[in-house]
């Protein structure tokens, strides 16, 4: 197929114009935008985080913040640094969520590593369970989302999340959290954090896609979820997660 750069660019531009016209129309008329070929039933999203690849650079935190206009002081994703002594009691810090990186620490008498954290998009989500009105929900493709037009701001979901990934957005006064960049992944892009990660520590996965490397990955690697005893059906799998991680 002989597509020149220009053709591709033109096609992309057309698609974008179409999408933005459609979006404008939808605002005005409430009609659905022109449908792309995204079918919710064909996807079941999750993520894999490889602890041994994370270098704590904070690119993910900054990218998420820019992509999703996350208010300062609140975090849809963050990175924690663990320094674990022999007694397996960790010292943990996360200065401003790692948005500006970590101050260098070259101690070698402890085991230390970084742990990126985000919403685990639990299949049996306790936050969805407690929402009194149905403002937060698990989408048919496995992403836990908040309908900010419907949320009351009661904060029950924030209390119910065992992982601390939710907050109340100071401007909309609704609950907010990582959306797995739903607006991106439904268009064939990857999440902002995965895009920005320089080492491939974060990988978006689609369990319903037979070609997705996740199937092979889970067959060959030891993985864990955070707080497995909470039985939340978390879909963010950590490779090489140390037992001291909270």
């Amino acid at each position, binding site marked *: 197929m002989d597509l020149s750069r220009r053709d591709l660019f033109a096609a992309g531009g057309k698609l974008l114009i179409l999408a933005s016209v459609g979006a404008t129309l939808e605002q005005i008329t409430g009609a659905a935008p022109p449908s792309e070929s995204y079918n919710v039933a064909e996807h079941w999203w999750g993520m894999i985080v490889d602890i041994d690849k994370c270098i704590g650079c904070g690119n993910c935190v900054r990218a998420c913040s820019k992509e999703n206009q996350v208010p300062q002081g609140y975090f849809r994703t963050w990175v924690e640094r663990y320094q674990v002594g022999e007694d397996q009691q960790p010292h943990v810090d996360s200065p401003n969520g790692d948005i500006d990186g970590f101050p260098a620490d070259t101690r070698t008498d402890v085991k230390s590593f970084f742990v990126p954290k985000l919403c685990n998009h639990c299949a049996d989500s306790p936050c969805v369970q407690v929402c009194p*009105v149905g403002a937060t929900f698990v989408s048919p493709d496995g992403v836990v989302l908040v309908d900010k037009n419907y949320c009351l701001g009661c904060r*029950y979901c924030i209390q119910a999340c065992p992982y*601390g990934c939710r907050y109340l957005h100071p401007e909309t006064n609704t609950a907010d959290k990582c959306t797995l960049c739903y607006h991106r992944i439904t268009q064939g892009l990857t999440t902002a954090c995965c895009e920005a990660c320089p080492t491939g520590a974060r990988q978006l996965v689609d369990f319903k896609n037979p070609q997705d490397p996740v199937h092979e990955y889970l067959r060959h690697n030891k993985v864990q979820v955070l707080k497995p005893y909470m039985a939340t059906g978390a879909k963010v799998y950590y490779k090489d997660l140390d037992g001291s991680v909270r």
Partner: protein
Amino acid sequence: MIPGVEGFMYPNEVALQWSLLIVLYPYITGLVAGAFILASLERVFKVDAVRPTYRLALLTALAFLLVAPLPLQLHLGHPERSMEMYLTPHSSSAMAMFGFVYLWYLMAVLLLEIWLEYRADIVRLAQTTNGWTGLVYKALTLGSMNVSPAARRIDDKVGFAVTVIGIPSAFLLHGYVGFIFGSVKANPWWSTPLMPVVFLFSAMASGIAGVLLLYMASMKLKKMPIDMPCVDAIAKYLFYTFVIDFSLEMLDLVHRTYEAGESFRSLDFMVHTRLWASQVILQICIGTLVPLALLALTQLFPIRAAARRAIYVASGLLVMIGIFAMRWNVVIGGQLFSKSFLGYTSFKLEFAAREGLLTAIGLMILPFVIFVVLVKLLPPWPERKTTEALGD
């Protein structure tokens, strides 16, 4: 270093989500439930000694029930969307049942029972009062002036049925709040099956104490003698209820300490430091042990009426303070420690903010204002002249 934070907290955990108003809400519904249970003691369980406080207890319950949704509304990020709880209640959420339980309790239990109890007086007042108040009474009659003895007998029977239904309704009205906390597996300070039961018994204690104090204050203000068998009976039930409540709370504490699960060390440290004053000193010592001891004295030894009255007032006040402290320690305490069990934050109580101290004080004064209006409108002691002060 984040001000007020010790150790490590997940970045989104530092600020508390539920503050003073969410402490106030269970306290208020607890008073409602407790006052109603006291009223039902007379109506259903035939404890005649507490009859003088029957109507008073109902009005107390109503005054507090009317104020109950206000702290919630003031807390919500979008109070204008609170209708959604009625439109699309999520059946898996304990909080979703609030709207329905509240309305049910208000309309089908409390208002109906008050109407049935007061109907004879309402009709009489409708016929004898003029002006705006007269119109109010006429509206309250709902158009029926039938107060024949037969009608009143039917009222009595229906009122009995309403009270019987009202007891589990009152339990539900306050118990579900305990479940809201007790069912959060993410929070080990809250998560226990005992939570609804503890909430309920402490609610009963605070409600009974509240009615006791209001009765004694009202009698004092109206210069009428206090019915000693009545307050003795109330104090006895207060004592029993509080003993059960204290036992349940101690059971929870002993159980946690014994099992010493993952969160224990973090919670134990929190109680010894950030919650020492509010939990150990205020809730347990001043708010529980002292009033229990005082009330126990009156149950075990013969004490002169005047001294008993003083003890009841002191115990009642301490109980009400202690139960408020309990709500504080549950709600605020549950948010002071990190779910990583590695750190703690502090609660900054604002004064003049939407969820600040001033608002809370206002919300606590409001039920008493409503109570005074209700007492004027529907006098709890219609034809009573004097009651002999019995006892001693």
